């Protein structure tokens, strides 16, 4: 039996490998990358505190965005026409406004409202805040990111809920399970399978999207590296500092996503595929077994 040959596969593979080798060679030998400066700034306190601020912006934006997103999705799917319309209008409005424009609006809200009051609508007021002191740059950023995120998460959550089989709701109703429990125990866990990949996309893009906040002089990661290279002129190594941190955290988020998705896949597939870690363990144990077999086999 003569197996068919694929000479062009070899040609393509070699060509690609040559390009990759050239790129790696450049990373190592080109002095412009300035790796010592990279190492110096990668864990500098100023960079780490900026990174922490970026993480905070991401977490607050995600929590606000998805909490509001669930409410908007529920409103859109409700039978109340007023809630449906409000939800649709919100999504329409916030998807129409570029994030940066919206952020600048929040940052400059004091032009519109000098003070905020809590009280009965059209009635007496109880508390009054000065807007400039109540809404800091950070608060404006969180509000802007969260409200923007909510419009997108609402649609993702709605899509997930719509994907759940109607028979599931019917069975839950026929069993007399209370409404709220039907949603949280029966519908949402099944909707999660559809929601998660898109939601993870959103969290990751929000995480990187926080760099847009740098235009408002908030000392998050990207703003901070710009400040530093503005001082010392080492543009490339400092951009690499930001880049590598963005990559590291996105990688962590992707790993979290993998395991959360696995959790919600319970019951959806007959047998769970192995995790990469389990696969590695299994491979190591078969190698060990083979080696022991070889050793003891040799002794015999």
């Amino acid at each position, binding site marked *: 039996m003569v197996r068919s040959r694929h000479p062009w596969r070899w040609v393509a593979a070699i060509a690609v490998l040559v390009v990759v080798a050239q790129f790696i060679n450049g990373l190592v030998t080109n002095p412009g990358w300035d790796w010592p400066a990279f190492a110096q700034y990668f864990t500098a306190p100023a960079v780490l505190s900026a990174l922490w601020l970026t993480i905070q912006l991401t977490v607050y934006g995600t929590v606000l965005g998805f909490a509001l997103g669930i409410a908007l999705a529920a409103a859109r799917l409700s039978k109340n026409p007023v809630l449906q319309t409000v939800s649709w209008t919100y999504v329409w409005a916030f998807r129409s406004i570029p994030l940066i424009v919206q952020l600048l609006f929040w940052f400059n809200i004091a032009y519109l409202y000098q003070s905020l009051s809590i009280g009965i609508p059209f009635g007496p007021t109880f508390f009054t805040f000065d807007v400039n002191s109540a809404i800091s740059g950070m608060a404006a950023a969180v509000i802007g990111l969260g409200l923007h995120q909510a419009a997108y998460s609402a649609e993702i959550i709605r899509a997930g809920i719509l994907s759940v089989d109607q028979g599931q709701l019917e069975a839950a109703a026929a*069993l007399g399970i209370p409404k709220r429990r039907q949603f949280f125990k029966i519908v949402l866990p099944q909707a999660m399978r559809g929601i998660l990949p898109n939601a993870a996309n959103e969290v990751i893009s929000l995480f990187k999207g926080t760099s847009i906040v740098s235009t408002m002089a908030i000392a998050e990661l990207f703003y901070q590296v710009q400040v530093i290279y503005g001082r010392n002129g080492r543009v490339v190594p400092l951009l690499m500092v930001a880049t590598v941190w963005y990559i590291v955290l996105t990688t962590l988020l992707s790993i979290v996503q993998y395991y959360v998705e696995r959790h919600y896949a319970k019951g959806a597939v007959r047998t769970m595929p192995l995790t990469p870690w389990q696969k590695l363990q299994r491979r190591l144990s078969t190698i060990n077994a083979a080696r022991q077999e070889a050793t003891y086999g040799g002794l015999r």
Partner: protein
Amino acid sequence: MSTASAITTGRKSFEQRVPEPGAPQQQADEQYAVEVRGVQKSFGALHVLRGVDLTVRRGEVTAILGPSGSGKSTLLRTLNHLEKVDAGLILVEGDPVGYRLKGTRLHELRERDILRQRAKVGFVFQNFNLFPHLTVLENVTEAPVSAQKRNRKDVETEALELLDRVGVTDKVHAYPRQLSGGQQQRVAIARALALRPAVILFDEPTSALDPELVGEVLEAIQQLAKDGRTLIIVTHEVGFAREVADTVVFMDAGLIVEQGPPSAVLDNPQHERTKAFLSKVL
């Protein structure tokens, strides 16, 4: 002659004037688990139920036969208010389904009370509709715990007994998709039983099953019949209906055409439409 009387009941339902839901005329009879009076239902222009009357005694097994589109599944779904009726009245254990009698008028129940009421009626679906993300045991215990607020430990013990009775003992911690269709439907039966319902409704319980799995599900249903439970079964299995049912109801075009014991309706049908249907399926 039982056959003749069965036919008259069928005819009467056809000619009888439909009572408005606002005015129930008589008190419910205590020996009936289910009473259906003049029920009508339309989906848009489609008149699916055109005045159905039916009574089911406690402990009786009723099989509903009929060509597809005759309204038998819709009738079943109105019995636990999965479909609202347009006119007529349904009583389960003497209580109007989906409504409450206040003085002489019926008031529509709130969603919460409808959900509570549904626990009295077990429902087994054609496609099982088990919750795929919950284990077999969780599927059975969910509603008794969350809807009936019963003690979880007690419910679990009872659920294991019920699963044992339908013959699913070794897979209580598996997920539904890891089970065969027949096993899934038997779990669905256990899930319905766990609510301790007064009546259990089956909507073509074997239609989604591979032929070799039909028997085990029918056996489980037959066991329930022997236990003296009140069952209403929409089915295409004429042989099964003959064997297990006390009353066979034949529906066509939104009406009950004929009803009576299987020996009458199945072996000696009086109505042309019944004869035509039986000649096709037997």
